[in-house]
């Protein structure tokens, strides 16, 4: 990736940059591991075995065992599945919510627009972690709380993007013509708005997924996220930290998995400035 790539606008339609392909490859590897590990190395991620405490890699678990003799392969795969599922769910719901509010605000204009913008800015003022923490105290189930909390955090970016794009497009001749011809909002959205929005959404979605995975792991790491014994990336790190000297690899695997997932997502988001 040369220095000028940052100046090329990210147009996912007309071909991806090499960086984005690299990111996709890394992410695919992670997803493949998360999905295939239970088939290739079937093991219950919660099953303890005192004989395997801090055991090294063997045929049943190529990543070794943790301090309770649980298979780290199974636990890592389960943790990745959990994080990826929550991230995907949060990205989808926040995209739908943010785009709906964004289109509505730009379309209606006036006080609807101002109110929506004010609401989004107020949500933005609350740090994302704080929002997720508070929702986790309201909603009893932790994965559900993460989903709702992250949706409330991530929708703002979609909203801002959609609002900015749509308010520019809505006055463009193409949309004006369609409206005069009597086409309904659904047609105008599909024909005029969506093709402009779609390529930009990928960047926001990749960043959103990275934020989600980071948040889940960070809260797990400081013991206010998922509860043990659920396999979760942050929890696995904090569980293995005391055994760092005896089993450095056991600590390193969740760390590397988190890093690679985030790296893949950040590379896909690519060209966009921080």
């Amino acid at each position, binding site marked *: *990736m*040369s*220095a*000028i790539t*940052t100046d090329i606008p990210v147009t996912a339609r007309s071909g991806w940059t090499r960086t984005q392909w690299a990111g996709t490859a890394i992410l695919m590897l992670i997803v493949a591991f998360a999905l295939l590990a239970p088939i290739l190395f079937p093991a219950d991620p919660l099953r303890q075995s005192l004989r395997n405490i801090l055991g090294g890699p063997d045929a049943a678990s190529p990543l070794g065992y943790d301090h309770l003799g649980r298979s780290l392969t199974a636990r890592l795969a389960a943790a990745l599945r959990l994080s990826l599922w929550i991230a995907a769910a949060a990205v989808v719901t926040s995209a739908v919510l943010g785009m709906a509010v964004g289109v509505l605000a730009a379309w209606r204009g006036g006080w609807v627009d101002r109110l929506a913008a*004010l*609401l989004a*800015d*107020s*949500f*933005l*003022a*609350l*740090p*994302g*972690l*704080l*929002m997720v*923490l*508070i*929702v*986790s*105290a*309201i*909603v*009893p189930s932790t994965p559900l709380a993460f989903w709702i909390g992250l949706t409330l955090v991530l929708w703002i970016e979609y909203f801002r993007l959609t609002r900015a794009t749509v308010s520019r497009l809505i006055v463009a001749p193409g949309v004006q013509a369609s409206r005069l011809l009597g086409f309904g909002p659904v047609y105008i959205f599909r024909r005029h708005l969506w093709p402009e929005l779609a390529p930009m959404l990928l960047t926001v979605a990749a960043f959103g997924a*990275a934020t989600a995975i*980071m948040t889940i*792991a*960070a809260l797990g*790491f*400081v*013991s*206010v996220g998922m509860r043990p014994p659920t396999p979760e990336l*942050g929890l696995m*790190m904090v569980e293995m*930290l005391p055994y*760092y*000297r005896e089993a450095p690899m056991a*600590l390193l695997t969740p*760390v590397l998995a*988190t*890093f690679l997932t*985030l*790296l893949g997502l*950040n*590379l896909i988001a690519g060209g966009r*400035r*921080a």
Partner: protein
Amino acid sequence: MIRAVGYRLAQAVMVALLVGVLTFLMMQALPGDMAFRIAAGRYGYDSVNAAAAEAVRQELGLDRPAIEAFGRWFMDLLRLDFGTSVISGAPVIEEIRHQLGASLQLAGAALALSLLIGPPVGVMAGLRAGGWLDRGLLVVSTALRSVPQFLMGLILIVLFSIQLGWLPAAGYGRPAHFILPALTLALGLAAASARITRDAMAGVAGTPFYAFGRWKGLGEGQLFRRHGLRNIGVALVTFLGLQFAMLVEGVVVIEAIFGWPGIGHALVHAIFGRDVPMVQGTALLLGLGFVALNAAVDLAAHWIDPRGTEKAGAKA
């Protein structure tokens, strides 16, 4: 300008309302009898009985209907009267003032450190766009962005405290305790601010007026001070406003990891103990802090670059 200030005020009220609703829902959602929970938090689980719970219930007015509670709740919030922490019994304002000091020390140290690292590297990379430093910066900042702050903290602890034994892993009070948490926060911030500065600098360095300045014989240093600094200033200052959000999130996690007695540490404990008044006070403080800082950033950006204020007010 007046419009912009009015907007920030409306935003502040909205933030307060949001915090009010969220924390009220949080209180309503507490499982079991809240009076028992709070009593257990205060006196320990072994010495809780119905009488103690009843005393707590009377003291905190937990037996009123929900709507009335929300009304009182929100009025108290608007008067910035957060009540007392249900765990420690001390006024929330006092607790927060105490912790805010520690947090500000850490955040200040991190911000200063990141400004020492980030912008200078960014300027050097931006002046020679495409050079080895520029390409190196891109790789390093992409990698750093993929390392969440808690992970950076973990790596630094393992490296400097466990392996090398140079620095304490956690604690507060001595200057040595500052280094690891501040460095953890600063690295992430510096990676981002270096990129921002680099992009702004590369943009300015490519303009005709910069080339003209060089052509008429200004030295590199002179040229940068006269024509570069102010132009990249707006991008950097605007970014600092955004960094605050990053810094706050970082502080919450980093303080919990390094045992730093600040606001983030307190917040995590308050969430854990369902200490709603503390959560409310902290959340409101962070939210309003963000609004105030962005208002300050608006003003600073206006002061650095008086052009285009009409647009700047309505945005962000």
